[in-house]
């Protein structure tokens, strides 16, 4: 029995089911927030899996997701700006919950890993994840604003 994999299973099952439900139903403003949530939940899940399988090299996946996931959300924020401006999303609660989850997971993993290059990588991943999701969520809730052209 491996506690890390159990935690990853619970995180992924709950978080991704919620974001799948959100992305499948409801108005557009809920769907884009759910898409952002999928990134924010999958990234800590991948970090927990890397620890659970005892393979530090799996952290690369979380790093790439933390970088490109918010880029994907920014794509939606930019190209759907017209529709989103009519009915702007509200995502403060979800965003901060996801950011909190990311922070807790990264700190727990850092505590286990101990100082070194691996910890630095974890911290970078965590910073990119949390920063990226906050910015992406900001862009969705009207930050992209303006004319929504080009």
């Amino acid at each position, binding site marked *: 029995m491996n506690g890390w994999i159990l935690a990853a299973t619970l995180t992924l099952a709950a978080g991704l089911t919620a974001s799948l439900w959100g992305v499948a139903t409801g108005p557009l403003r809920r769907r884009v927030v*759910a898409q952002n949530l999928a990134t924010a939940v999958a990234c800590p899940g991948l970090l927990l899996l890397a620890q659970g399988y005892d393979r530090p090299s*799996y952290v690369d996946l979380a790093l790439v997701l933390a970088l490109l996931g918010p880029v994907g959300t920014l794509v939606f924020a930019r190209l759907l700006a017209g529709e989103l401006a009519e009915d702007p999303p509200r995502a403060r609660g979800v965003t901060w919950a996801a950011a909190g989850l990311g922070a807790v997971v990264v700190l727990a993993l850092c505590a286990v890993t101990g100082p070194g290059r691996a910890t630095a990588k974890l911290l970078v991943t965590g910073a990119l994840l949390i920063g990226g999701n906050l910015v992406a969520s900001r862009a969705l809730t009207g930050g992209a604003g303006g004319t929504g052209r080009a």
Partner: protein
Amino acid sequence: MDDAVIAVALVLVAACATVAVATRDPARQALVLSVLGVVLAVLFTVLQAPDVGLSQLAVGSALTPLLLLLTVRKVRRRGQREESGR
């Protein structure tokens, strides 16, 4: 324990693929496809294929949605112009 996480990922992939097909509006389908990309990457990781997961993340999270949305925008822009031109 490994089996449980694989089963969860498989069920998520099946559900997500079904939703992606059932979503008829291309822009909303692009959103579902981007979630499908993330879920597939998780499945590949638990099937111990991090290389494929990385590939899927790189392609599925930003590239495919961007291509789909740009096509939607081009086609819509044409459609709108024809509506107004008639």
